[in-house]
């Protein structure tokens, strides 16, 4: 157990000296953090603040809300937001649908079997997003594996449009984001005391009732953590929609890239970024308020 220097500070003779010492200690520790803090400040906080400042001015350099008004006025922006939220809801839903049973199975397996199965979750997690998107392109494209097999089997005569469209984006993103749901969910399920389940069954509850009335409610905080992470990552996802969307599925992040790189409209691009950040932080704040959990602790459970 770590003993805080502050605990030594009592009303003794040395109170002042000890207090000064504690302050020095704290400053020294802050010094240890300072390289990291400075780097994050310069590389992340400063540019984002700058972009926010830019977003407040229109093309003529006048202070105005034009960059933000665009979002509710122009149909193309509204379509982008609708697409983004549609993708985010579908992908999150699919992740829950297939991730929950997987996490549940992992939590019920003996330790050795579970850790072998976990490799299958962690390995894709640490494989480049590009590699996995490429794999899905190869599998789903017009002359890809799935279409070739289905045609060889005589199930279809024309290749199905699976890649370069909405379906491709959904499949690719679900695959990439699934570990982000499964890992925190599994960690929270492992923390559920099996005695609760034994007690429920001892008292005569059938397995289904034990699951729904005892296990499921206890797993909800972990599920919520996973859902929030997946949803947030969906909102800002770039690589897969850009490569698998075939130019038809324009999501928020792609829109930001287009406005800044293609049209050099920094004001509009920045405004998009500011709103995206606000929505992200808002969702996290809501989640923390509802569950009283630190959002960062979810990441720590990997």
């Amino acid at each position, binding site marked *: *157990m*770590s003993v*805080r220097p502050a605990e030594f500070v009592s009303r003794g003779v040395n109170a002042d000296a000890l207090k000064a010492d504690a302050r020095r200690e*704290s400053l020294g*520790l*802050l010094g*240890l*953090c300072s*390289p*990291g*803090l400075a*780097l*994050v*400040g310069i*590389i*992340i*906080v400063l*540019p*984002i603040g*700058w*972009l926010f400042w830019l977003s407040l001015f229109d093309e003529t350099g006048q202070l105005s809300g034009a960059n933000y008004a665009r979002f509710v006025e122009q149909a193309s922006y509204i379509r982008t937001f609708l697409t983004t939220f549609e993708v985010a809801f579908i992908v999150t839903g699919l992740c829950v649908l*297939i*991730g929950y*049973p997987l996490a549940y*199975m992992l939590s019920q397996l003996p*330790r050795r079997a579970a850790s072998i*199965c976990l490799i299958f*979750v962690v*390995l894709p997690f*640490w*494989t*480049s*997003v*590009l*590699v*996995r998107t*490429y*794999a*899905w392109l*190869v*599998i789903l494209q017009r002359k890809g*594996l799935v279409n070739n097999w289905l045609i060889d089997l005589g199930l279809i005569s024309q290749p199905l449009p699976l890649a370069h469209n909405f379906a491709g984006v959904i499949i690719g993103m679900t*695959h990439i984001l699934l*570990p982000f749901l499964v890992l925190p969910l599994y960690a929270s399920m*492992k923390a559920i*005391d*099996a005695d609760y389940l034994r007690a429920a069954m001892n008292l005569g509850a059938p*397995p289904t009732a034990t699951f729904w009335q005892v296990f499921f409610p206890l797993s909800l905080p972990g599920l919520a953590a996973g859902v929030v992470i997946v949803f947030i990552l969906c909102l*800002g996802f*770039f*690589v897969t929609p850009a490569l698998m969307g075939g130019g038809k599925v324009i999501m928020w992040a792609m829109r930001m890239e287009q406005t800044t*790189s293609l049209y050099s409209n920094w004001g509009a691009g*920045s405004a998009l*970024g500011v709103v*995206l*950040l606000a929505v*992200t932080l808002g969702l996290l704040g809501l989640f923390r308020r509802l569950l009283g959990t630190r*959002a*960062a602790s979810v990441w*720590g459970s990997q």
Partner: protein
Amino acid sequence: MNDDIGLPISHWRRLWLYGVGALVLLFLIVPSLIIVPMSFSGSTLLQFPPESWSLRWYEAYFQSVEWRDATIVSLKAAVLTTIVATPIGVAAAYALNSGALRLAGIVNAVLTASLIIPVILIGIGTFFLYARIGLNNTLTGLVLAHTVQALPLVVLTVLSGFRSYDMNQERVARSLGAGRFAAFWQVTMPQIRFSIVSGALFAFITSFDEVVVSLFISGGETTTLTRRMFSALRDHIDPTIAAISTCLIVLSILLLSAAQLFGRRR
């Protein structure tokens, strides 16, 4: 921990659960692994299983100057990011762990901010900043941006290493006359070194696999492998990328096993 669940439910009645779980696991692992045999295909068509085998796509990868240069840039950036991010992360984790740090919550939030802030915003922001200070298309800029993204992983990994270490040992060393740094270096470091190595490996792979920010701030001489892959994938599906992907998958497996190995030995 509930190692043995011991509920009166037979495995037989759970068969459906194992079935569903196995299918989901296959969904997770098969797409990446299917690339490996396909990369040894002898034809320009990507087939599974390939009709003929050859190493031609690996030759195409290693003999192309562009791909080789991009790989070297990515390796350099990843090594430098590891070298920069690891000490900074360890120092910050040490301070956060001590409990005597004021505003620890805020410090933690700032250091791990890059996990939560949308990557696209970081990409556009750094591009915008670098355009003004001339760091776009430089290795320095790349390393700094990657360090910020790798930092949270180092901090969180090392913090979890500290959790299973008793800080009083360092206090004893200091009370016996060891200096601050000597106490850390000789007493604490050896005991948390495995989590430091894990954190360093995570930093390496974070930098090596990073796509979105590199897309904005790398180019020309310092085009990273991922950036070149991204551009190539936008045009057409080149089987050379299957060979590169296989190399990346092997790298992930190696680094991850190393991290696991070190992680377990704390």
